[in-house]
């Protein structure tokens, strides 16, 4: 990734294609946030590759003026992995939906994470299959009534953060479509991080799953039901910054406390996104309203060697040691004889 001279602006990342999501769809805002985030990375436009699967969200690459690949359902992680390993110089972004990433694409998703390939995976979680018009997804809430579950689902949803951690995830963050600034901030950090990053963006599908995140996203309540985590800052939240999180060590659980007589800011947990041991991050990622506020921001961010980097390094090492420098050398290596 070569830094560019010319400073790019969000407009430079807009393609000439008409944006075709439903009016009011959360995808518009996320597109917006990415178009604002990318210029901040100081990477030349031609060095971005945006890879998606299939789904409403996966139409994304068409609206970006970078290199883009709208591939097939569920395979974006694998395709993006190939792009990145083939050319580690590129900044590779994967755009995916909850169905695309975690239903049909679940295996590629967890393996890309496990391998720590330097991809930026933006997961649009609307808890529904939008493009096929409203069937439940692996993140739909238990009991959801959808076109394929007219009597309610009987399956427990994945929690993307938990699954990411279970797959050896080194970077997990969460944002929401109606918080443009937070999205932008996180995308920039994800873009800078070396290794697989997963950003779950809670996204509203106005048509097939309207208000699925409303309990925590409504302007009225959101400050009391969301906590934005920032590395080395205390875990404080609430409209009046009057609530926080502490650890109930005995039950190994997070507890919400009111700041005031009994607790002050210094009693609160301080967020350490860089702790390798995933226990705390798992608890944070798993917090659910109403018991807890839902965690936003960068929950986990661990440095570790990347797959693509290691492959490139290994190739260089072996190259430097081997006597075989060309195909002619190869063909004549080992046992040969003259006639």
């Amino acid at each position: 990734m070569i830094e560019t001279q010319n400073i790019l602006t969000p407009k430079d990342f807009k393609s000439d294609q008409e944006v075709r999501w439903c009016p009011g769809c959360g995808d518009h805002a996320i597109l917006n946030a990415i178009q604002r985030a990318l210029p901040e990375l100081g990477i030349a436009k031609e060095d971005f590759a945006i890879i998606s699967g299939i789904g409403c969200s996966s139409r994304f690459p068409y609206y970006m003026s970078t290199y883009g690949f709208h591939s097939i359902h569920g395979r974006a992680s694998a395709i993006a992995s190939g792009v990145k390993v083939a050319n580690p110089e590129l900044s590779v972004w994967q755009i995916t939906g909850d169905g695309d990433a975690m239903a049909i694409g679940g295996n590629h998703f967890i393996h890309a994470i496990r391998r720590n390939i330097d991809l930026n995976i933006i997961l649009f979680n609307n808890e529904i299959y939008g493009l096929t018009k409203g069937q439940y997804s692996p993140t739909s809430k238990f009991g959801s009534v959808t076109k394929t579950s007219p009597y309610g689902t009987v399956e427990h949803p994945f929690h993307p953060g938990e699954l990411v951690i279970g797959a050896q995830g080194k970077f997990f963050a969460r944002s929401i479509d109606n918080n443009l600034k937070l999205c932008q901030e996180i995308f920039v950090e994800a873009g800078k991080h070396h290794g697989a990053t997963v950003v779950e963006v809670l996204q509203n599908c106005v048509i097939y799953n309207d208000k699925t995140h409303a309990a925590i996203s409504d302007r009225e309540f959101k400050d009391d039901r969301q906590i934005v985590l920032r590395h080395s800052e205390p875990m404080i939240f609430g409209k009046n910054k009057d609530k926080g999180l502490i650890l109930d060590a005995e039950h190994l659980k997070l507890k919400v406390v009111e700041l005031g007589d009994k607790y002050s800011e210094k009693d609160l947990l301080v967020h350490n996104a860089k702790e390798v041991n995933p226990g705390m991050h798992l608890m944070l990622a798993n917090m659910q309203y109403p018991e807890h506020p839902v965690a936003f921001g960068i929950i986990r961010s661990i440095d570790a060697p990347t797959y693509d980097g290691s492959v490139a390094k290994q190739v260089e090492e072996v190259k430097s040691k081997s006597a075989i420098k060309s195909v002619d050398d190869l063909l004549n290596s080992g046992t040969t004889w003259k006639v």
Partner: protein
Amino acid sequence: MSKKADAIEREEVVIRFSGDSGDGMQLTGTLFSDTSAFIGNDLSTFPDYPSEIRAPQGTVGGVSGFQVHVGQTAIKTPGDYADILIAMNPAALKATAKWVKEGGTIIIDEDSINERGLQKAGYKTDDPIKEDKLDGYNIIQAPISSLTKEALKDMGLDSKSILRSKNMFALGMVYWIFDRPMKYTESFLENKFKKKPLVIEANKTVLRAGYNYAETMEHMTPSFKISPAKIKKGTYRNINGNIATAWGLIAAAEKAGLELFCGSYPITPATEILQELSARKDLGIKTFQAEDEIAGICTSIGASFAGDLAVTSTSGPGLALKGEAMGLAVMTELPLVIVNVQRGGPSTGLPTKPEQSDLMQALYGRSGESPVVVMAASTPSDCFQYAFEAAKIALEHMTPVILLTDGFIANGSEPWRIPKMSEYPDIKPPIAKAGTKDWQPYARDVEKLARTWAVPGTKGLEHRIGGLEKDELTGSVSHDPINHQKMVNIREEKVQRVSKFIPKLKVEGDEKGDLLVIGWGGTYGYLATAVKQIQDKGKKVSLAHFNYIKPLPVNVKEVFEKFEKIVVCENNLGQFANYLRMTNPEYKYLQYNKVQGLPFTIIELEEHFEKLLEE
């Protein structure tokens, strides 16, 4: 070592080494082949593993075999039946005796013929020779195990290690029979066990013991002389089809000036291609052992998008899994080589046995009208050539190419005259350069109909591709009916145009005749040998063997129309015959099919052809 005066001069001989999985038969066979190659014989080998899991010692299921066919003329197959069988135990005898020529020689380890061994092998009596009706054969019962022990008794080795070298005793005997020098084997042993001088010494001792034993009992052992083959001058090496495939791809990457990327998932009998490429980091090869076959092809599609020569390798069931993604490569018109090493199907089928039953799948195993180039290699060593060609076509025509090989040529090996890379053409993919004016992702060159390849990182050519139908020029999504019809036609035509860039179909034998034998892929050796042999009897039979299947060579009709009868021979139920019926419906195609997880035999082919000529 005495020069043998009474040796029988032979054009060619087939030897089969057969023993328990742990008896080192693959090594023994390889050493014999190498030595024969060194002294200038032509040869062809076929390792025949047991089923995938090690069966209990001493049972028929656990027998591992290695057949080698050596000769002073061009050798094209590992041979139907063996002149000499080396059977290390009763199970090996039981499993393999039926593959020995009538009256042939069978050397068996006398020490292994005991109650336990016989019973495990499934013999019901204590006389396996009689039980298997081998009385007319030249049976040599040699006390291989005890003589091996005897030879090593003073060396201080444990008995397990001692017995492990009994294969060298057998090899020594064979060397005497064929009057082969032992020095190549000795130096191999010295190399391999560099750090274990005791093992070197033991093996060499046993090898010589075997040689000497055979000499001593000269009256019983036959003795053959096979002069060097008259083959083209050059430097030679042994190569099997999988290695040749891997190397052909590497060669193509070098000639194209691209990096090679292989996304793949292990599967018998294709795994070795991935393994060999993984070992070639010295040439910059990037391998990606994916989580499954779908990820194998998808990482490769990604790598192709990013500008690498991208390859994925698999076998039948794995190819089925790649169908959907292949469709994406067709739609996005990205270069991609898919190597499919065919095995016995359907489903898990007979995973270690060769078959040619993936042809239809290669042609049609995808949704929609989804044309790709399909080709097939026909011998272990020409896998190099066809892998190279497959990559060249993929890159220059911007299309997926499926290369079919099979378990038979993938594992089989033969001497190969090492080419120089300077003899190979450059490969020139249509890479779009930064700054190209008015560049359009789906604009095509008029001759090949290939679009250009604009690789991420190229300034100014940013564009989007995908699996939805594309506008014929801009590559944007298009739902326009007429555009769809055009694109469907163009994709098919682009593949058909490849026919202008491939060699014409060759006829082996006269261009006119009574019977045209048609084959494709890995059956070549058998068909060519059988056809040659009846040609030698004066019959008007010729062979047309196909390596290019879709598109077919341009001169197919020219070739076909000059024969009275056409017979298509395949190890499946007639897939290529059917394909010819579709593409060249004006001819009548007879079929000869065998689906037994085994190659044809030359004998059965000859018989069948002669019958057809008489009818």
